[in-house]
């Protein structure tokens, strides 16, 4: 029987109950939300379960939503089940004041640099990471450039109307 998004959702709800939430399907990919304390448990469950077999970490990065107070940073995991060829995505939200998220490096060797990159650009502190330091930016940098409070252009410029360029 082919693995469908419904089956994945049922399995997760049977295991974690209401703690996994916000199930949605966009462009055919199942996505949901996991509390940050549970991220490793969910990853491990998806990895170990004989039916689910999500054993390939495709991508890991973060998104900054400055308007969601208390859950500003979202760490996004993309997993792939190569046997049934199904992908899924889940998000872990964290407070920007205390951006501690458990590291997935013990389960996926590939998470090492992906988490370093996420730390480098968003300042997510991956607890348990063996070597959490900047990877693409210089080590002396003291801010996290992909956060939304750092606009791309000098804000003191007055010769340009920001409204004309999409984002005010």
């Amino acid at each position, binding site marked *: 029987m082919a693995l469908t998004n419904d089956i994945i959702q049922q399995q997760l709800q049977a295991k974690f109950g209401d703690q996994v939430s916000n199930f949605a399907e*966009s*462009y055919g*990919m199942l*996505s949901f939300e996991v509390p940050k304390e549970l991220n490793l448990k969910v990853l491990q469950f998806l990895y170990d379960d004989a039916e689910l077999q999500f*054993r*390939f*970490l*495709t*991508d890991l*990065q973060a*998104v*900054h939503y400055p308007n969601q107070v208390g859950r500003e940073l979202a760490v*996004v995991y*993309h997993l792939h089940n*190569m046997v049934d*060829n199904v*992908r899924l*995505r889940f998000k872990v939200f964290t407070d920007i004041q205390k951006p501690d998220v458990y590291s997935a490096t013990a389960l*996926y*060797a*590939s998470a*090492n*640099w*992906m988490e370093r*990159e996420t730390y480098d*650009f968003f300042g997510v502190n991956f607890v348990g990471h063996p070597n959490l330091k*900047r*990877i*693409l*930016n*210089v080590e002396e940098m003291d801010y996290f*450039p*992909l956060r939304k409070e*750092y606009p*791309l*252009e000098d804000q003191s410029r007055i010769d340009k109307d920001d409204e*004309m*360029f*999409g*984002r005010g």
Partner: protein
Amino acid sequence: MSETITHTHIKLPEGSIEKQTTTLNLGPTHPATHGVFQNILELDGERIVAAEQTIGYIHRAFEKLAERRPLYQITPLTDRLNYCSSPINNMGWHLTCEKLLGLKTPKRVDYLRVIIMELSRISDHLICNSIVGVDSGAYTGFLYVMQYRELIYEIYEEICGSRLTTNIGRIGGLERNFTAAAFEKIEKFLKEYPAVLKEFENLFMRNRIFMERTIGAGPITAERALNYGFTGPNLRAAGVDYDVRVHSPYSSYEDFDFNIPVGTTGDCYDRFLVRNQEMWQSLRILEQAYKKVQEFKGAEAEVFHADVPEYYLPEKKDVYTKMEALIWHFKIIMGEIDIPKGELYFPIEGANGELGFYLISDGGRTPYRLHFRRPCFVYYQAYEELVKGGMLADAVIVMSSLNLIAGEMDA
């Protein structure tokens, strides 16, 4: 550490401990790295005991830049990821946008895109494999095949006007139809290239020196490769038949008949063989695509883009004479089109692995967030495991056979 050496030529500071290993910097501007990244190797004689990679020397903040650009202006950024096969990146980006917009491109456009993508896959594999040759001491193959990479670049030139950073295609199709000269050059390529590839193969495949240098160098098992996030030829060399073109087809790849070559040991020799075999498969796809394109007759043969006035620039002659066309032209160029809300991850088979675009749009004119899953960024972290315990000379050859492109790693 039996005796303390009393007569040394180097005066060490008082109290320092004699170091037993040598530290060697391979890179960032070393001829063997073929790109700007650094490997700090710890050597015991000629054996590698530890390695550390430093990357980020050409980081250009593409993800941040993309947050301020309308969709069509992001294409030139993708050129500069894997610059050995930029058309694949361009197409991947256009396909991502089209998926977000829910666009369907005509079949002819899909086939023309397949032609472009397979040509660039060949040129990428050609460079990678011939560089493996250079790093193992065989320069001839590299010089010999350059001529045909040049022919591929000429084909790009016929199609879009540029060679390396191509900015090829548009959202919804291509910027112009293939010219007769482009088809002639593709035909020439299809006719001449098989013999060249055969000869290139003869130079290396059963070459004793080449085999002894590459067999057993930097091997990886399928489990470790998957755990490290390997994709593309490097994963297939380890024995996993995963190819995005087959598993989640895009641009009508399901219409083509081809095989996925796999290796067994995941060492440099298998990676070489897999790439080599993939070039033959790309040739097969190219031939089929060329035939399919030739089957379109009459008005159908003139189709090279979908009908999407919001994203596809109107013809210049209309811009000069028609008010509506002029308005659309300005709206597109100034980036005043609102992108629909959505969140998607779109993977394509890049020349060195799964290239993914994770795009979040909040309904504004620019992406809210764009992340590139760059295959060689992900698998380069396995480098230490691949070279540890090996010889220094192997470290160089492993690096080139992984097909590491600095532009893609650093984004």
